[in-house]
């Protein structure tokens, strides 16, 4: 345990290898917030290939160890790579079997080091990662929620959103989040944000997954859809006032 991910130079001998300069298969926003029992995280299950909504059943939130959840937007293959690194980390941590375990703060720190180091080598992992979890500390259960992006910017907050969520969901979260929300309140708030994103973000699809993490462990709920409303009068007969044959 200890060394961070190797850089892009996989080739033996001459020639630099490069990896993600542009993202190809991308996930859109992830939203997360702290509530009474832990952290809730949600995103849609879509991965776009440019402007095509290519993959529709993609899990962009995964459990990490016993205490954390990770959600990612951006290049999906880079997220899979990150999951592999986390797998190695959590496996070696588990094999120690000594009562110590990696908490969300440690994992967030580790990911920050990885992301920042890759950016310094001009070979970034093209993701915005959301890391949430709960762990028993000396002063009781400590909830943790943070994010780190492809250039290594990282911070902790009570609510996080990536991608379009930064612009569309954060204002809602800032207005309506409060300490110690119940699970139902938290889901309602998250769904409100997801709905706005569904209406306004072209790369979102109407199939979402919510995940939560508490001291009892993590749960990733099965995907479901939100009800949308399109019955606006202007949509009914859009060509009504148009001049000409079209």
């Amino acid at each position: 345990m200890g060394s961070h991910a190797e850089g892009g130079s996989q080739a033996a001998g001459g020639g630099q290898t490069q990896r993600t300069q542009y993202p190809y298969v991308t996930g859109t926003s992830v939203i997360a917030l702290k509530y009474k029992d832990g952290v809730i995280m949600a995103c849609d299950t879509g991965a776009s290939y440019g402007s095509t909504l290519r993959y529709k059943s993609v899990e962009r939130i995964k459990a990490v160890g016993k205490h954390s959840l990770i959600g990612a937007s951006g290049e999906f293959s880079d997220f899979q790579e990150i999951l592999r690194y986390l797998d190695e980390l959590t496996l070696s941590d588990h094999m120690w079997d000594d009562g110590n375990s990696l908490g969300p703060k440690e994992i967030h720190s580790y990911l920050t080091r990885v992301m920042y180091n890759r950016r310094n080598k001009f070979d970034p992992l093209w993701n915005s990662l959301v890391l949430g979890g709960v762990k028993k500390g000396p002063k009781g259960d400590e909830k943790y929620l943070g994010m780190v992006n492809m250039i290594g910017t990282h911070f902790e907050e009570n609510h996080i959103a990536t991608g379009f969520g930064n612009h569309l969901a954060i204002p809602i979260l800032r207005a309506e989040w409060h300490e110690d929300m119940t699970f139902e309140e938290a889901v309602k708030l998250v769904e409100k944000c997801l709905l706005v994103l569904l209406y306004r973000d072209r790369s979102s699809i109407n199939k979402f997954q919510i995940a939560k993490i508490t001291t009892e462990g993590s749960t990733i709920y099965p995907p479901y859809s939100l009800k949308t409303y399109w019955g606006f009068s202007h949509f009914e007969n859009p060509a009504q006032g148009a001049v000409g044959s079209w």
Partner: protein
Amino acid sequence: MFRNQYDTDVTTWSPAGRLFQVEYAMEAVKQGSACVGLRSRTHAVLAAANKAASELSSHQRKVFRVADHAGVALAGLTADGRVLSRFLRNECINHSFVYEAPLPVSRLALRLADKAQVCTQRSWKRPYGVGLLVAGLDETGAHLYYNCPSGNYFEYQAFAIGSRSQAAKTFLERRFKGYNDYTPEQLIKDALSAIKETLQGDKLTSSNCTVAIVGRKDDGTIEPFEMIDAKRIQEIIDSMEIAEEAPAVASSMEESSDAAPMDI
């Protein structure tokens, strides 16, 4: 021990399956002045008997802070010990840098043990001639490990190493069962008493011992690894002596009031 034909280098086994060079290295630990370590569930204490090369010089430094949550006391070749302390400090800060969390003490002890083991399996190296008591605090509580030159390490409730450490070990063996529930003050007193056993007659003062403690208070705040200053050690020693003298005075008064022994 004894010279024989299998002890020239560390990579030679004896027919009995022993590595003599490693065993000789463990002898070096016994030459150093005594150190003791003890722990409760929440606190760990290290104490060392200070030995000065002469009256003119200062005493050898034997207790080192490795990180906020851990420290070591060593016995043997202190030069080797200094180098290993630097290694331990490095491991701790490397871990803190990546994970922003303290390196668990068991993993610290393991890295030290693996480093020591390397020296027992290379013909161009020699084992480190120092034994270390590694004391620290992590999320599973307070810990005390003994790392020896062979690359072995064990966890202990209480232990003593160095010259005349057997006296200290005997003292600790009688008392260790209650240590998990001891308060920090009780641990410090027992550490000082154990060191006193190794001084064999010399008076225990704050100038011939060093004590350090690390732990977590009941409310969760961490007390980082820190040497206790001489003034406070002297106060504790004085209070221990008063406690010892008080019952002694009482019993001698009783004897004098008894009838005189019969003369035959």
